[in-house]
């Protein structure tokens, strides 16, 4: 497993480093951030989309379906229950370069069996410890 390092940069903005990649997460201005990067919820939804897309791409590779240039558009909405906000619904449109025909159902199933979706559906253990320098 790779170490992911997050560092507070400014305001609500955090930089994320993993395996030589670096990017920023922030909140939108209307949520007290400076919009220097996507929000954690944006990233979670995008991760779901990307994970599904990768699994669909792998399936297409296996069965010889065209997938290059496939596009996914997604939106999510939040709900607040008992003081706790969460993503309620993620709506995903998948646009394929060509109709998959009779393999369409199997292709959708391939996208449904991805790490991120499985994790969201079951919920991981989250173990946090805090110290001070």
């Amino acid at each position, binding site marked *: 497993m790779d170490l992911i390092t997050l560092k507070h940069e400014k305001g609500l903005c955090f930089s994320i480093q993993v395996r030589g990649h670096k990017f920023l997460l922030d909140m939108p201005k209307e949520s007290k951030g400076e919009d220097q990067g996507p929000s954690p919820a944006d990233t979670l939804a995008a991760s779901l989309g990307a994970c599904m897309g990768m699994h669909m791409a792998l399936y297409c590779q296996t069965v010889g379906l065209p997938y290059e240039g496939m596009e996914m*558009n*997604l*939106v999510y*909405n*939040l*709900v607040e229950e008992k003081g706790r906000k969460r993503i309620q*619904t993620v*709506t995903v*449109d998948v646009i394929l370069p060509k109709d998959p025909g009779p393999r369409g159902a199997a292709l959708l199933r391939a996208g449904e069996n991805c790490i991120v979706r499985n994790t969201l559906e079951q919920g991981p253990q989250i173990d946090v410890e805090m110290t001070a320098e």
Partner: protein
Amino acid sequence: MPAVTLAGKTYEVDEDGFLQELDKWNAEFAQEYAKEEGIEGQLSEEHWKVINYLRSYYQQFGIAPMIRKLCKETGFDLKRIYALFPSGPAKGACKLAGLAKPTGCV
């Protein structure tokens, strides 16, 4: 209470610009507010299809429809909805349609 003035008429809105007096909505409100949302020119038939569906649904159920329902009933996919309303179905289309702010707004 904040207010916006569109075509000489003043409308009470919330802090996010959503109409507060829902019975004051009219087509002129939508057309004028469209400019504030970055929509240039006259609202198209496609814009009105979305706005009219939102209003019809809201009048029947008291809430905005889920985005998938909006897509299926209008025939527009997510990409088209966002092309028509750059602020999105909630902050863009619902606002122009004079609905109360959807609870699931990000």
